[in-house]
């Protein structure tokens, strides 16, 4: 990688684009926001784009022939093109959802809604007893529970790839786990807890051998690593807008054209139909087939503005370089504190800017509370990856996750606040 972290001046300029970063919390502590893995903050450009849409173009896209509706449609479809280009995709293969969770459920329900008499090729998705779905032990609940429920609905069996002590996928037993019975392999690109970046190419290659479809949870990779769907060569890919400087309430499901075409509808209603009679309906081609009802128009436009913003500050490569530099500093700081254990890779190899850790003898909730007292906002708990926490035999971890606007000083603020923890809880510090 040749991209460089942001300079101090660059970060200062970036921070100025995010009004919330100027605020204080609790009793006047400046906000140190290290919870971008949960949701990122929003730059003014995104808020302006949404507002501008509402103040000038607002109307229901694809639903009218009047001038406003034409302009709204053009803006909405323009946003689709912009977002598609950002992941190396064609606009018509990008489906808008409310969040990645809906995207992944859309994918999972396709299997239990198949075969669908009105969708040629949907047999491809039909799942039943004897079929298997393969996930991993490090999945976010959003890429685990929908598959559990799918298996419940269809009688298929859920299997999973275990995780090593270092927080990497243990692919040693893959030959037994991934077989002709496997119809879908669903896994996370970059873990929202460990920071681990998984070997997509290897898993895709093995899945292709047995004819399984590959669903990638790219929630943490699209904003932080960058993603090109052609390079990744997966079948379906999901991410959320709110983790990449976009508004809440918008997500994406990308799919290979021929698969989207063979997928039965999920949410049904207006604007996803071809013809409707009381006796039955036929459905529009993708992406409309999967966008029932008045869509998240302003949010799509806000997300396109977020993509523009990312490009304007130097693109995902620089963001990644910047976040890795912060991660390196944090990992070094934590390594110097023997009473802290990092859960996940301790080096920068195949890693994103997310660091989870435990303080010996102190519950993560208490650690987080102490940090919060100094204005440092981290997330505590199982981060919607409860099975992963069970695997590491901890109920909860403390997690710091970075974005382009974080500074070296903020890493140090975290470490300084952390040093008060052993003292408060009377542990050896």
């Amino acid at each position: 990688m040749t991209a460089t972290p942001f300079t101090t001046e660059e970060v200062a300029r970036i921070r100025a684009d995010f009004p919330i970063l100027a605020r204080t919390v609790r009793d006047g502590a400046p906000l140190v926001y290290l919870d971008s893995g949960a949701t990122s903050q929003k730059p003014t450009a995104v808020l302006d784009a949404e507002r501008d849409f509402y103040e000038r173009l607002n109307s229901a896209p694809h639903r009218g022939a009047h001038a406003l509706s034409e302009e709204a449609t053009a803006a909405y479809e323009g946003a689709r093109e912009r977002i598609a280009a950002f992941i190396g995709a064609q606009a018509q293969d990008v489906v808008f959802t409310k969040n990645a969770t809906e995207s992944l459920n859309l994918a999972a329900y396709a299997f239990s809604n198949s075969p669908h008499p009105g969708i040629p090729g949907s047999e491809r998705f039909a799942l039943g007893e004897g079929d298997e779905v393969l996930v991993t032990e490090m999945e976010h609940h959003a890429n685990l529970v929908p598959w559990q429920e799918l298996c419940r609905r269809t009688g298929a069996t859920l299997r999973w790839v275990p995780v090593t002590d270092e927080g990497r996928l243990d692919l040693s037993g893959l030959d037994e786990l991934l077989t002709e019975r496997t119809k879908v392999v669903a896994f996370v690109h970059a873990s929202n807890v460990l920071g681990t970046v998984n070997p997509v190419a290897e898993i895709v290659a093995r899945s292709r051998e047995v004819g399984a479809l590959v669903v990638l949870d790219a929630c943490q990779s699209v904003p932080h690593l960058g993603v090109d769907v052609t390079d990744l060569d997966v079948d379906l890919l999901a991410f959320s807008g709110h983790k990449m400087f976009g508004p809440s309430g918008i997500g994406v499901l990308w799919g290979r054209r021929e698969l989207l075409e063979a997928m039965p509808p999920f949410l049904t209603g207006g604007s996803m139909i071809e013809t409707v009679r009381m006796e039955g309906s036929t459905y529009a081609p993708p992406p409309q087939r999967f966008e029932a009802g008045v869509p998240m128009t302003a949010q799509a436009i806000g997300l396109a503005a977020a993509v523009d913003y990312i490009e304007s500050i130097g693109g995902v490569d620089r963001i990644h370089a910047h976040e890795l530099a912060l991660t390196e500093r944090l990992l070094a700081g934590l390594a110097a504190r023997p009473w802290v254990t990092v859960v996940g890779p301790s080096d920068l190899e195949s890693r994103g800017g997310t660091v989870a850790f435990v303080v010996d003898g102190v519950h993560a909730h208490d650690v987080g509370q102490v940090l919060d007292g100094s204005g440092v906002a981290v997330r505590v708990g199982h981060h919607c990856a409860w099975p992963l926490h069970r695997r590491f035999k901890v109920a909860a971890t403390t997690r710091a996750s970075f974005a382009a606007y974080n500074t070296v000083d903020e890493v140090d603020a975290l470490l300084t606040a952390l040093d008060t923890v052993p003292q408060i809880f009377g542990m050896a510090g």
Partner: protein
Amino acid sequence: MDLYQQLILEHSKNPQHAGLRDPFEAEVHHVNPTCGDEVTLRVHVEDTPDGPVVRDVSYDALGCSISMASTSILAEETIGRPLSEVLTTYEAMKAMLTSKGEDPGDEEVIGDGVALSGVGKYPARVKCALLGWMAFTDALHQSGHSTETTPIPAKEGTS
């Protein structure tokens, strides 16, 4: 309204070559899901030593003046002409209609089709004007003739 040129109103009130006729090799039914407009369309293409020739395009259409006129013009501009020329006309029509009003259309190539040049400025109406043409190329396709009948390709993003 500049959109409703006299020629359009005439075609839509008196659609040329309307009705469904024999013989035909393929019949298709297309709808515009936003407004419910429908067209049933048949093509009869004959293979000649000089290549395929469109002998007949017959149709039963229900729709707005733009879609009615466009289908009428389609019939007028295609019946009796070599398929290769007809496909050129189709491409030219499509280019004009999707040009957002930039391309005024070449009367040499698309005949009365130029009357529809105003449609390009109204994106929601482009589908109306293309309904018959989409049905036509689909019917050609189903009757085994090669066409460039892909739907309007989505533009590539510009990242």
